[in-house]
């Protein structure tokens, strides 16, 4: 037998060159000042931006919850269709993703603008205009719109593994629809739920395009803040690196949280 470990070697090299080394550089920047001397002041000054961090986390959490609420019933519905229909429906769900991300977000801009399509349409009936663009709601909408398929797919995949007879067994044993949902469907779909949460939350919390285009200046997110440090007026690599580091830790914490939730769901059965 060839050592199977050797098969991972190319990726390992890739990892070291393009992930581990850059990460070390980021850490290096985060812990030094402009002259290159060691300092913790980058990390301590982040406290000033806690409102931005909080806003990012809250908006990303809102988007994740909305995605979950939309995707869960849909995933169940899809998983109960006949397999030929399932493929068609999945294609339709993926369809918007074939369009460029920027273009999609621009489209929302022109829809939500004060003299955009929606307000013009409502204006025909004498309603509005509403201020929709440059609000936190618009940012959440953009997140949900762009990342919803990443919630649907893992949920759908997890639910295809739940056989009809298991759901029938729950009803047979006295579970109402609510009981079947909470005691069987959600626990059994929990691997998909955990994956979906990670796949929506992580890009949402670090996005800067959506917030800049739909959120205006008042809805700055961590992503925007980091971008400013590297490309914008602030221009402070060291602070930007520190922010990235803190964001990474937050994301890791969130992921480990969803993973423990996932494992509990799988093994369950605490007596």
């Amino acid at each position, binding site marked *: 037998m060839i050592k199977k470990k050797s098969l991972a070697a190319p990726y390992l090299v890739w990892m070291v060159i393009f992930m581990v080394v850059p990460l070390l550089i980021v850490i290096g920047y985060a812990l030094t000042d402009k002259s290159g001397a060691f300092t913790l002041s980058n990390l301590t000054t982040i406290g000033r931006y806690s409102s931005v961090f909080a806003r990012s986390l809250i908006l990303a959490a809102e988007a994740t919850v909305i995605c979950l609420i939309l995707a869960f019933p849909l995933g169940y519905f899809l998983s109960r269709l006949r397999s030929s229909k399932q493929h068609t429906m999945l294609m339709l769900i993926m369809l918007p993703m074939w369009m460029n991300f920027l273009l999609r977000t621009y489209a929302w801009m022109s829809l939500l603008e004060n003299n955009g399509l929606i307000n013009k349409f409502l204006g025909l009936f004498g309603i509005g205009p509403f201020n929709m663009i440059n609000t936190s709601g618009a940012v959440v909408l953009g997140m949900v719109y762009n990342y919803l398929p990443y919630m649907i797919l893992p949920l759908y995949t997890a639910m295809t593994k739940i056989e009809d007879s298991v759901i029938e067994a729950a*009803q047979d044993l006295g579970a109402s629809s609510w009981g079947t949902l909470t005691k069987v469907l959600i626990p059994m779909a929990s691997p998909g739920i955990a994956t979906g949460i990670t796949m929506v939350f992580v890009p949402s919390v670090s996005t800067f395009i959506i917030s800049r285009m739909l959120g205006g200046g008042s809805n700055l997110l961590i992503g925007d803040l980091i971008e400013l440090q590297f490309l914008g007026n602030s221009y402070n690599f060291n602070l930007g690196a520190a922010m990235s580091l803190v964001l990474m830790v937050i994301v890791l914490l969130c992921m480990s949280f969803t993973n423990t939730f996932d494992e509990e769901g799988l093994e*369950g059965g605490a007596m």
Partner: protein
Amino acid sequence: MENNVIVSLKDIVVDFDGARILDGLSLDIHDKEFVTFLGPSGCGKTTTLRVIAGFIEPKSGNIFFDGKDIAGLPPYKRQVNTVFQKYALFPHLNVFENVAFGLRLKKLPENEIRSKVLEMLEVVGLKGYERRNIATMSGGQQQRVAIARGLVNQPKILLLDEPLGALDLKLRKEMQLELKRLQREMNITFVYVTHDQEEALTMSDTVVVMNEGNIQQIGSPEDIYNEPKNAFVADFIGASNILDGIMIRDFLVEFAGKEFSCVDKGFKPNTPVQVVVRPEDVKVVPMVQGQIAGLVKEVIFKGVHFEMRVDVEGREWLIHSTQASQPGELIGMCIGPDEIHIMERQEG
């Protein structure tokens, strides 16, 4: 053993995708009986079970449970529990929690749940397995969990949908006896679905033979085996010789070109009938002593007996005999009056 009727189906019609699955089925199931629905796949036996469980709403007809019409009552409100074909256990719960599922929904106190579950696990022979993960258990063990999960709720009826289909032969035989024991011990009604005639005959108090959405015959295993009502039942219950004959008068029937005395009566003279002769009921004798003669075409050793195909006047008979004959040999055959079963001839 005439107990009260616990479930009564009246003119149940079920259509699925434009095809008629149950065609006006009516049936009474008595309390504390072991009832088996027997038939080939697609005969509607599982559908009937699902109508009782509440998973299928019939297009028309009534279903009474303890005298009350339960049409439209959802499954979770019915006093029946089901053991599914592929067990359908909850993979995210361990053995204990699987069995406790129904009791927890009833919000019983924790100590009561615990004692009931442990007691039931002991009954099905799974004591000590409480904390086991479902995925680590064999098919037979999983089936025991599924049975315990149903029985622990003390349903009036336990419905079993081909529960032994996935098990190997030896385990299946063991479980057949075990299910029969459980049914007697728990003293409740079992409704069992199978396509395996031997299984049906082994376990049941009453066998319901079904075909194409209709009931062909209801009776005790002995009745069904010995007095099949029609050619379908005779054929399905066991390989049989089904021959066209004429009932000449009471106690005398003609088939295979000979007259035989029999125990049947009540037909009009010279009524065309069908005659069933079981393969094991044909006695092989030297040719001169036989009522009819046949030419042995094929002999297969089957363990307890030899299976022979014998040509009798151009028609092939199936005969089980403990003594081997040789292919090409001419043999005599005797059939006693008790071994001849007369059925009305069905056209088509």
